[in-house]
């Protein structure tokens, strides 16, 4: 069932790490379940790079089910019969929260989009926006904050910078800093977008076209990093596509998508352009690349968690090479050094980074148990 998002208009300009501020900022969000009278049962779910607030409800553009419906809902591990679940679109994104496609208040009254005039944001800025939303909802302390991938970065940032705002912090398939390899893959994506003539220095909103080709290539490159070699091999191997003329599995001796894996990536790329803004992709990947929680706290990750009273749980997947287990262990060691209550488990799954979104009974058990 599709459901209109709520929108929270921030009463104050949102201060940003860059020193700038975001005027007239707004945050689009979805909620599920009932907030208890004492407001003690709120769980904030933070979404990943290309995610959105539709965690457990139909996406208004694609019509697909919510991106974590198998985890969030009545009777699910994050049980909306018990918990009041909040999921908000991060600032910089394009599903209703302020981002580069939003009207720039300075351009009033013609309400032209910010485009590249949107300030560069950080993960901490995203979380600052989420904290403003929690203030607006009157929620002083979350029962839990939960996130996978970039959502995990937000959960860590919340725990480090607003430690009193969450009693439990669940971080799945994530990292406390972007590695050179992570940044490199993102830069490929950004360059693909910016090399598309339709990008037009970001000013494409009024042109009637958009850098879909560049954005699709960015998505294709990124998508590879979300899967494991084992998973790709199992799913596609070297199998060839059936050709339009009916010949089965023949090479075209050309540059069509001969291999099934090529066809799959092209499909992923073009589908993505239907629902995502290319400039948002630039801004959010930038924010992730800037993310280094230790750097924000004097260079020592343990200092980011000094005095933390929340319970932490970290989960990694053995085939995730984007944010490998070592990154989670690095966070666990810092939390141990800070004396925080931390659990950690590496789960076995064939599908690489994306495993956190897929069927995994053990993950369900850990999530359900941790938020109990």
């Amino acid at each position, binding site marked *: 069932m599709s459901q209109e998002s709520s929108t929270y208009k921030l009463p104050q300009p949102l201060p940003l790490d860059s020193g700038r501020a975001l005027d007239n900022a707004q945050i689009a969000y979805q909620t599920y379940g009932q907030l208890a009278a004492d407001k003690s049962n709120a769980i904030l779910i933070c979404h990943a790079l290309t995610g959105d607030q539709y965690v457990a409800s139909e996406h208004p553009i694609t019509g697909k089910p919510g991106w974590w419906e198998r985890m969030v809902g009545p009777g699910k591990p994050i049980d909306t019969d018990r918990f009041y679940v909040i999921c908000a679109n991060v600032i910089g994104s394009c599903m209703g929260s302020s981002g580069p496609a939003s009207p720039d208040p300075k351009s009033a009254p013609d309400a032209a989009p910010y485009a590249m005039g949107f300030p560069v944001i950080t993960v901490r800025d995203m979380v600052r926006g989420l904290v403003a939303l929690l203030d607006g909802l009157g929620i002083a302390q979350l029962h839990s904050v939960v996130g996978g991938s970039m959502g995990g970065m937000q959960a860590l940032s919340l725990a480090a910078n607003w430690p009193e705002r969450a009693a439990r912090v669940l971080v799945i398939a994530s990292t406390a800093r972007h590695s050179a390899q992570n940044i490199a893959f993102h830069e490929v994506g950004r360059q693909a977008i910016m090399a598309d003539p339709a990008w037009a220095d970001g000013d494409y909103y009024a042109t009637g076209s958009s850098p879909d080709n560049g954005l699709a290539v960015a998505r294709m490159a990124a998508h590879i990093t979300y899967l494991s070699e084992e998973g790709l091999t199992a799913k596609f191997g070297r199998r060839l596509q059936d050709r339009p003329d009916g010949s089965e599995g023949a090479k075209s001796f050309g540059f069509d998508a001969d291999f099934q894996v090529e066809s799959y990536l092209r499909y992923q790329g073009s589908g993505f352009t239907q629902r995502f803004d290319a400039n948002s992709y630039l801004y959010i990947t930038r924010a992730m690349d800037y993310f280094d929680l230790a750097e924000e706290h004097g260079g020592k990750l343990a200092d980011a968690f000094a005095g933390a009273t929340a319970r932490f749980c970290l989960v990694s997947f053995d085939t995730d090479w984007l944010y490998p287990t070592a990154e989670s262990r690095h966070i666990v060691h810092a939390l*141990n*050094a800070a004396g925080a209550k931390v*659990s*950690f*488990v*590496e789960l*076995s799954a064939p599908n690489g980074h994306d495993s956190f979104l897929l069927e995994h009974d053990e993950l369900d058990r*850990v999530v359900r*148990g*941790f938020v109990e």
Partner: protein
Amino acid sequence: MNAATYSDLRPDLAAIAAHVDRGSRVLDIGCGDGDLMGVLEAEKGCDARGLELNAALVGRCVGRGLSVVQGDANTDLSNYPDKAFDYAILSQTLQTATRPDLMLDELLRVGRRAFVSFPNFAHWRTRGALMFGGKMPVTRALPVSWYETDNIHHVTVDDFRDLAKAKNAQIERSWFFADERAISPVGANWRAEFAVFELSR
């Protein structure tokens, strides 16, 4: 899931639980499904943390609300700061360590005190099996055949006393068990199936 109580614990764990000071900080190394940690938190108000190699067991612990990190005691104790805990507990794991002597050092580095429990290889039943059977013993206390067992460093009560001495570790207290019951320390090297030592340095 209901928390375990004293009476549910294995005798060596019950002895440890009974002698941990109330409200202390505890690291349970090889915590399994967290029975001891659960009792220490519920009955003794301890702040208990666990280290466990098996992911499924870690998942069970997390589900019980315990703080347990998946990791290998042979390598991962080095990630804990000095004297981070009042007690480091190693129950029936010493004999599986790559280097039990180094692990003992680590226990006494991360904990002010350590509890160590292990099956005694010099128990009369083990001796009998070896002496009269001429084969590596498979007994109640050591139920797995030599080629499958995780116990790669069999140890006796007297061996452990020697190791403690060599490591300048003070034996504060000790407890011995046979047939699921506490026994007197007299002739423990013969009579004990399991031993528990409390150490300090």
